[in-house]
């Protein structure tokens, strides 16, 4: 009986983090889609050439975000790495982080006409094999054309 208690906690954590993590992810994705729609008029491209128009101002803009993976995701990732499978939970995590970073960058460039040369970088946060979180950073040059 004594031995079962840690396992009980482990299973409870596993199940609870699955539901909680999935719920949070769903809410976050809905939020991202909504904000992406609102910022559709500000194109962020990876091109370097501005349009052939008079330029008023240029500015370096960036946005970053650190997103933590949950307990369920870590267990699934460890299990999947035994068999060399596709880790879809990690894909969702990276996608969330990158899109959020690009959105924050766009929000900082409010009033600009375009963002040129957007670069997205990501970095693992955590010591050695442990993954505390994923950092995504987007930066680009916001350009304001003469009206």
């Amino acid at each position, binding site marked *: 009986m004594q031995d079962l208690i840690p396992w009980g906690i482990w299973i409870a*954590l596993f199940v*609870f*983090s699955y539901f*909680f*993590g999935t719920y*949070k*992810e769903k809410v976050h994705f809905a939020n991202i889609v909504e904000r992406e729609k609102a910022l559709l008029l500000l194109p962020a491209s990876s091109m*370097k050439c*501005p349009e052939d128009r*008079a*330029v*008023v101002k*240029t*500015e*370096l803009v*960036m946005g*970053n*975000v*650190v*997103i*933590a*993976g*949950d*307990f369920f*995701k870590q267990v699934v990732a460890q299990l999947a790495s035994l068999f060399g499978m596709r880790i879809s939970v990690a894909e969702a995590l990276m996608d969330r982080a990158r899109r959020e970073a690009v959105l924050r960058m766009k929000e900082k460039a409010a009033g600009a006409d375009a963002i*040129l*040369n957007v*670069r997205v*970088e990501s*970095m693992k*946060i955590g*010591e*050695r094999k442990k993954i*505390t*979180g994923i*950092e995504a*950073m987007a*930066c*680009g*040059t916001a*350009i304001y054309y003469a009206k």
Partner: protein
Amino acid sequence: MEITNIETIPGKRITTHFGLVCGSTVRSKNAFKDIGASFKNIFGGELKTYTHLLDESRQEAISRMIEHATSLGANAIVNVRFATSDVAAGAAEIYIYGTAVKVE
């Protein structure tokens, strides 16, 4: 000071190149704030303390780069790039570099 990550400052002409300028900062995590992060690590979500920490470090690195460029007499920096590296357990270096130029 105008900073871009493309090769030119659109709408302006570059008159002088001063070469590479850089700024860097090494930051470590805060063990006390890490307690909160380890809870978040179970249930997922954004780690706001880390987001702020990294954002602040980048701003500091940029301001150091600007200082360097100003001391050379430049008024703009083009082709800025960001790099990060792990220097020790729990610490990261943020390195930002670009080309200092004079525009008119």
